[in-house]
C-alpha cells in the first residue's frame, strides 16, 4: 500500500477545521494537520512536508502559500496549484466550492481525487451555509423596508395595508423593478422630503 498521505489544512476557525479533518480522515488513509495562525505560514507548512495543502479561497493568507509554488521556495518538492491535466475539471469544481488545493508535484491523480471530493463537499457545505445566512439577513432587511414603505403609503393615501402592498407591487411591475427596490426608493424619497 502506498504511503499515508499528509494533508495540511489552513483554517483559523477551530470548528470548521475539526469538521474538515474528520471528513478527510473518514475518506482516506491520511494524516491531517491544521494550521490556524498565519504567522510564518510557508515555513510552518514546509515543516510538515505535506502532499496536499487545502485552504479556503477567501482566506487572504493564500498569497503566502504562493511561495510554495516556487522552486526556490521553502519546500523540497515543488507544489502546484491544483490545475493540471486530467484534474483540470476537478480544480474548477474546487474553486467554485471555495477551496484551493496545492498538490506536490508527481502525486498520482487517483490519490488526489478522494481527498478533493471530500474537501469540495465540505467547503461547499460551509459556503452554502454562509450564503444562506447572508440571504436570510438580506431578506429580513428588505422586509423591514417594505413594511416602512407600506406604512408611509397607508398614512399618505389613507389606504389599508393590503392596498398599500398592492400599490407597491403594481409600481414595481410597471417599472420592471423589485418590490424591495421600489420600497427603498420611497423610503429614501420620503426621508429627503422630510
Amino acid at each position: 500500500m502506498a504511503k499515508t498521505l499528509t494533508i495540511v489544512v489552513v483554517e483559523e476557525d477551530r470548528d470548521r477545521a475539526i469538521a474538515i479533518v474528520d471528513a478527510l480522515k473518514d475518506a482516506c488513509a491520511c494524516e491531517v494537520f491544521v494550521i490556524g495562525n498565519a504567522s510564518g505560514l510557508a515555513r510552518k507548512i514546509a515543516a510538515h512536508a505535506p502532499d496536499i495543502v487545502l485552504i479556503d479561497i477567501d482566506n487572504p493568507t493564500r498569497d503566502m502559500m504562493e511561495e510554495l509554488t516556487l522552486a526556490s521556495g521553502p519546500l523540497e518538492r515543488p507544489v502546484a496549484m491544483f490545475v493540471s491535466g486530467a484534474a483540470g475539471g476537478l480544480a474548477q469544481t474546487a474553486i467554485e466550492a471555495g477551496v484551493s488545493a496545492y498538490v506536490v508535484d508527481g502525486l498520482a491523480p487517483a490519490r488526489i481525487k478522494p481527498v478533493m471530493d471530500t474537501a469540495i463537499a465540505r467547503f461547499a457545505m460551509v459556503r452554502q451555509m454562509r450564503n444562506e445566512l447572508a440571504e436570510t439577513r438580506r431578506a429580513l432587511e428588505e422586509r423591514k423596508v417594505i413594511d416602512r414603505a407600506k406604512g408611509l403609503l397607508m398614512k399618505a393615501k389613507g389606504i389599508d395595508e393590503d392596498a398599500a402592498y398592492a400599490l407597491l407591487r403594481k409600481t414595481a411591475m410597471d417599472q420592471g423593478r423589485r418590490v424591495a427596490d421600489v420600497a427603498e426608493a420611497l423610503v429614501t424619497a420620503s426621508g429627503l422630503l422630510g
Partner: protein
Amino acid sequence: MKQVTVPVAYMPLVDAAPLIIAQEMGFAEAEGIALDLIAAPSWSSVRDMLAFGRVDAAHMLSPVPVAMAMGLGGMSTALSAVSVLSVNGNVIGVGKPLEARLRDTGYGFDFADPVRAAEALAGVRDGPIVFGVPFPFSMHVELLRYWSRATALGADGIEIRTVPPPLMAKALAAGDVDAFCVGEPWGSVAVEDGAGALMLPGCAIWSFAPEKVLAVRTAWAETEPDLTGRLMRATWRAGRWLAAPEVRTTASELLSRKAYLDVSPELIDRALSGHLTVSARGEQRRVERFVEFHSGAASFPWRSQARWIAQQLRRSHGASARHDPDAVAHVFRTDLHRMHLGSVGTDLPGASEKVEGAIRHATPVASAGGGLTLLPNRFFDARIFDPNAE
C-alpha cells in the same frame, strides 16, 4: 447599444482607481458596459478568478502575466496585459525597531534618496533585513531586488517574504518581517497605526515603473474584441479623468467607500496628491508623480517593460523559467492597445519598445498625433535597459 455586464476582479488599492472611476463616473456606461467589480481577498484569488473564467478582466500586478508566460507559479492560462492601469505608487517602509535604530544614527527619512537609505539600513542591520511584500510576483519584489543589488544593502542583504498587506502590521509586531514594500493605502495605514515609518517611494528606484495592468485571458480578447475595446477605452478615460488635480477630492471620496477601499478619504488623498506622511511624528514629504494614471502615455503597455520584468524574473528563478523573450514580451499587448485606443484621441507612441531608464527629462517623441511627451524614466543608478541588447 445594449449594455453588457463585465465581471472584473480587483484588489482594494488606490491604484484600482481607473476601474472604480470607470464604473462610478460613467465612463463604462458611455461604452455600453457595466463593470461588476469584485473585490478579491488575495492576489492568488484575482489570478484564479481570471484564469478560470469567474471574471473576464482583472486589476493585476504587472509581473503576474509575465511570470505565467514564463511557466512560473504553477498556473499557466495565457493572459494579456492590454493596458497599464498605473505607473509607480509603492512605498518602502520599516517597522518600529528599525525606525528607532535609523533615527539613532541621525537618518532623516528624506523619502527621496535610495542610495542613502540603503547605506543607513546596511549600517544598522544585524543580519539580512526581512521585507514583507504582497506577492512573490510583483513590482514590489523587483524594485527591492534591483535596489539591494545596486547599493550597500547587497543582493544577500535582504530576504523577501509574502505577507498580505492587511496582516503586515501584525507581522511587523511579531518580528516576522523587519520592513515592507506595499502599495497605497497600506503604507499610510502602517504610519497611521504607528507600525512603522516610510523610507522611499517606489519611484525613487525606477521613476516610471509599470505597477498594475488591466489583464484579460488572451483567448477572451480574441473572442470578444469589441468588449475588450470598450473596457480599455473606459479605463483609459477614467485614467485621463484622474489626471486632473481638481478631481482629487471626488476621487478620494469615491475610492474610500465601504464597497471599495473602506479607509478614510484623507489617507487615499495622500497617494493621489503625492503628499505623504512618512512617520508617526507627522513628518511630511512631497513626491512628484507618486502614482501616475495617464500622463506620458502611462497606459501604454511597452513590450520593453515586459522584457525588463522577464529579465528580473529570470535572474531570481533561473532554471525553472521558460526562456522565450519574444513570446514573453508579447504578453504586453501594444497591438491591442493601438487597435482599440487609436480612435479615442489618445496619442500613442510610434514605437512598441523603448530603452528603459534612458529618459532624463520629459521628452517629446514620435507619436500618431505628434503631441506626445514621455515622462522621465530613470533607474536610480542611471543604468539603462536596452531591450535589443538581450
